[in-house]
């Protein structure tokens, strides 16, 4: 395309980088370690689960510069076009003074083998910037994406609590550079498209949403990469060829929310972190669920659109979105169509999406007044674990106590995220009673035939699918007794 830029440009710590020498499947981590010998950032797993590779990426969000922790191992270099990449090497001052985050870690014996430590430092740095005096829950949530095998985390959490006591650092790098960085990044936002490489090494970074629509319609064989929390693994683990690639993570237009008529419209490029902000306010259960998707880094990268378009039977947002009656908007070129989200999922690996068509947004109706909504995820490990089974429930009760509307959807129970129609049939129009819930629980076995795998046995999946429905019922009864184990007291 005429006029397309043939290079990407970004800030790396204190340096402006302009380069056209980039392959679409080159990870940010490999770039840092192999080409820049910035070896403070480590590779622990190459799949976004351990956090040893955590770096910060600063980007403009509605004109404001925000820094987020990301996994450099599954983030593609090309996707940092227009961003500020900050690695652990950027923290220590020239005179050798450690950053408060680093000094707190040293003073609290927060490192043993030290391999995970730079990742923890960066994760805590990101937390410290957005919340200088975090609660224990804030700290633990921020560190869900960082594994440490030596310390047992106790000294790291103690260090995290102590950081603010070290005083605001003079010349804190990202504070000192803020205005300058913002201005540079703004200057780069010129709506231009980037197009680099031929054949197996070709990629496009569209300049706008319309440009993306055009580019994808013209290149329907392209791999769309938003957060790369899944596609990253296609490269690092399966060594798949992904070119041509269209990187859409930088499209602010896809990161928009809309609120109207009792519904929220979420742009496909909204990250889990972004979606949590708006969904948790209206539906606390949705917020709690999002807190258990990946770690902070993955939630900063992964998008709602990606979670849907990917079509995985164990994606965490489709079941609650289906239970809420969400509607999907797909776009191809300038043509849009909408459908109930549940209809998008046809079968394992098969969705109702045409070549060149992409997920543009999802519209979520807010629960009716007095309606109940909840979503529960079952995993081996509470946090940063992939779903074994997930139940999402929405019920509206009529004045006489009968069920006026009900939608029940599960993940991990079938080849797609799927509604429990038989169970719903046992409830609709009937009294919301333990007896009828028991019948609905029994009906789940005609809705689902789950499989056994490394995450759970079929028996366990069915049992918890039943019991989660029961938990939901008990929750709606307004009981004061605990209905499940909780790590944190409700805020």
């Amino acid at each position, binding site marked *: 395309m005429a006029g397309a830029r043939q290079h990407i440009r970004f800030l790396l710590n204190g340096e402006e980088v302009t380069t056209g020498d980039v392959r679409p499947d080159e990870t940010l981590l490999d770039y840092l370690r192999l080409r820049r010998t910035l*070896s403070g950032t480590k590779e622990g797993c190459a799949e976004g689960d351990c956090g040893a590779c955590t770096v910060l990426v600063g980007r403009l969000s509605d004109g404001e510069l925000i820094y987020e922790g990301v996994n450099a191992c599954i983030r593609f270099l090309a996707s940092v076009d227009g961003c500020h990449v900050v690695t652990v090497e950027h923290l220590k001052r020239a005179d050798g003074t450690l950053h408060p985050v680093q000094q707190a870690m040293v003073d609290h*014996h927060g490192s043993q083998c*030290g391999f995970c430590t730079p990742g923890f430092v960066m994760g805590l740095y990101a937390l410290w910037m957005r919340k200088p005096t975090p609660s224990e829950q804030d700290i*633990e949530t921020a560190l*869900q994406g960082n594994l440490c095998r030596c310390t047992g985390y106790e000294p790291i959490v103690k260090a995290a609590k102590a950081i603010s006591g070290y005083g605001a650092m003079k010349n804190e790098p990202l504070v000192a550079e803020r205005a300058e960085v913002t201005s540079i990044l703004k200057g780069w936002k010129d709506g231009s498209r980037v197009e680099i490489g031929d054949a197996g090494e070709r990629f496009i970074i569209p300049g706008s949403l319309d440009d993306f629509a055009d580019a994808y319609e013209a290149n329907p064989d392209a791999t769309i990469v938003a957060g790369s929390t899944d596609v990253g693994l296609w490269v690092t683990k399966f060594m798949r060829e992904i070119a041509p690639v269209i990187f859409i993570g930088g499209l602010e237009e896809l990161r928009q929310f809309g609120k109207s008529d009792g519904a929220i419209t979420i742009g496909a490029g909204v990250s889990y972190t972004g979606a949590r902000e708006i969904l948790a306010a209206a539906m606390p259960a949705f917020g709690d669920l999002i807190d258990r998707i990946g770690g902070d880094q993955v939630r900063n990268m992964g998008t709602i659109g990606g979670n849907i378009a990917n079509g995985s039977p164990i994606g965490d947002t489709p079941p609650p979105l289906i239970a809420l009656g969400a509607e999907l908007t797909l776009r191809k070129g300038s043509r849009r169509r909408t459908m109930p989200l549940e209809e998008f999922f046809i079968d394992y690996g098969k969705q109702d999406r045409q070549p060149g068509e992409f997920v543009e947004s999802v519209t979520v109706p807010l629960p009716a007044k007095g309606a109940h909504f909840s979503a529960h995820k079952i995993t081996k490990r*509470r946090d940063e674990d992939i779903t074994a089974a997930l139940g999402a429930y929405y019920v509206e009760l009529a004045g006489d106590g009968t069920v006026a509307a009900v939608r029940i959807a599960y993940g991990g129970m079938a080849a797609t995220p799927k509604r429990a129609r038989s169970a719903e049939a046992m409830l609709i129009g009937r009294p919301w009673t333990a007896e009828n819930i028991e019948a609905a629980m029994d009906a789940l076995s005609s809705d689902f035939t789950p499989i056994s795998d490394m995450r759970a046995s079929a028996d366990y999946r069915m049992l918890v699918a039943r019991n989660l429905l029961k938990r939901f019922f008990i929750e709606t009864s307004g009981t004061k007794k605990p209905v*499940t*184990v909780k790590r944190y007291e409700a805020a």
Partner: protein
Amino acid sequence: MNRPIQNPSATKISGGVATDQQHDSARKHVTGEAVYIDDMPEMAGMLHGCLGLSTVAHGAIRSMDLSDVESAPGVVAVLTASDVPGENDISPTGLHDEPVLAEGKVHFFGQPVFCVIAETREAARRACKRARIEYDEEPGIFDVGGLDPEADKLVTKPLKLERGDIALALGSAPHRVKGQMRVGGQDHFYLEGQIAMALPGEDGDVTVYSSTQHPSEVQHMVAHALGVASHAVTVEIRRMGGGFGGKETQANQFAALAAIAAKKLGRAVKIRPDRDDDITATGKRHDFLVDYEAGFDDDGKILGADFLYAARCGFSADLSGPVTDRALFHCDNAYWFPAVRAQSAPFYTNTVSNTAFRGFGGPQGMVGGERLIEEIAFALGKDPLEIRKRNFYGTDERNVTPYHQTVEDNVIERVVAELEASCDYAGRRREIAAFNANSEIVKRGIALTPVKFGISFTATHFNQAGALVHVYTDGSVHLNHGGTEMGQGLYVKVAQVVAEEFQIDIDRVKITATTTGKVPNTSATAASSGSDLNGMAAQNAARQIKDRLIAFASEKYEVPTEQVVFLPNRVRVGNQEIAFDELIKQAYMGRVQLSAAGFYKTPEIHWDRERGRGQPFYYFAYGAACAETSIDTLTGEYVIDRVDILHETGRSLNRAIDIGQIEGAFIQGMGWLTTEELVWDEKGRLRTHAPSTYKIPLASDRPKVFNVALADWADNVKPTVHRSKAVGEPPFMLAISVLHALSDAVASVADHAICPRLDAPATPERVLMAVERLKREMAA
């Protein structure tokens, strides 16, 4: 650089023993400046290797077509078994049962069959995928359930411990229990994966940088595989990003292949497997099936205990012999058995060869023993803690172990009594019972469990260590020893010992990378022995130099030797004080040797495996933990509400480091017993080979309240280095309290009338299934 003397009038040096000295690399860790092998500058022309792994669990290699691999972009060479110039064997036991690369036959899914060497790591990985290997598959053995120790294949000789007449004891006991327990394995999940980098030298020499806990063994294995003498191979390691036993023998393969390729091609070669390959192709903690039977009286006093520990060893012996031995050595935990028999069955299976992992079989042995206690408690309707206390070893009697060693340093009763009081066990048990009576879905549980862990390598000859200390003419000290640093703080502890010995500030002591070129014939840094052995060896080296300095000063200043006294950063000679650095300068001018090789061997220990008798352990380390949990009886989900630990470290060299070891070991042990589940499918393929599927604890899994205290009222009764105790492994087993607290919570659904027999790992699924079973049995 000649630095001025530090604090010439100080009353205390900085960083001596018994101080909370920070980890020597702490600043480098937080800045990212600490260099791991993959961070080292790469030599020009360096190549990268990737292992080609078998895709079946058991079978003969019918054909191997690697032509597409060879022709892949960037590929320089493809190694197969026939490229191994020396012996195609890296079995650490000398049993010749573990090839560098498979030859003719594969024995587990993921066994290295070939190795691609390419210009980049990515090219090597991509090329690996192009192999076309056909196998004649054979049936595999994936589980030890149903195997017969008499008939089925073992990888090494089993062990039997026996004391007293077990048949008589069981036969005449008023009560008996009998059962079986499954105890899962564990992946090490060191954050830094396996890695080796080999640099070819002249004369066929090779230098290997290997992330290993056992540089001497890597040296020997590389030499064997290359067919050269050990003196041609130098192995060096500054630090590992975690080891936990997973780099005791498992580094050998990568080091050997890197060295073979480097020599063959005359270029530097690095091999760093992807995490999935690392987990698939390297050994783990052994999973066990434990058969147990006990006879006991009305009070719960054990009269006889009989155990069979069947272990999934994988396809080769590796360290399975000593691992299964150590399981037997810990079936008794802290309990005296009047009559006992414990037998091991180290089974061959078509899975990766299991290996060392923190505790080295001890945890599995202890978990089996603690199940026995639990069964007795349920059989008698008593609190398990009561049964535990009733059966503790005595001090002057009731103190002989199943291996006929007398326990001479027993403090378990005091440790448990203090913890029981400080954590308010009794009060909380009552409070929990009241809560459970009123809560239908959420149930809570509590358990207090002891640990007694034997310290020493059970192979007596490993209990030796060397060190090398140089004092340079400016008074600065270069310290080297055979121990390796994997995060446990060994380097800083040994530096503290040397600083203490010379009475100089610790920053005058430079800690240097472990290398076979400086200290030879070392043992693995394992069995919690690092500071016990290397601390003593370094102290010995420093004392030799000190003795020479004393003799020198005595002669030069004409004072008796007892008037030469090392004070902080200075030496008092008669009536005058001389700065340490100054004395060193004088000693050099006086031609005093300022370098020494130190040595230490643990005294007293001996072990006769054939007879199952001896004193395999120099001493024991003790501790206890009380855990409280809440479970959701609808889903099996749980949280660890509170843990209190009292652990004994003798006179700690460094309390901060020791507390770090205790907390870290506990959480790692908790992971083993809760969420860390290794799942193999019906074809013998490990399905949990990445952090996405294999779940080690997170910050949000640790106990909500976590109190850790050191029982520092007891010095080591043995003359260990400054009377300290080993701390690497013992606290790992404190986590058994979590398994029992979960079990206690499960038991509440059946009014504590039925033993939950909760196997490990107690995943939410296992917890829920146990709840369901108890509810069913209660209803029946």
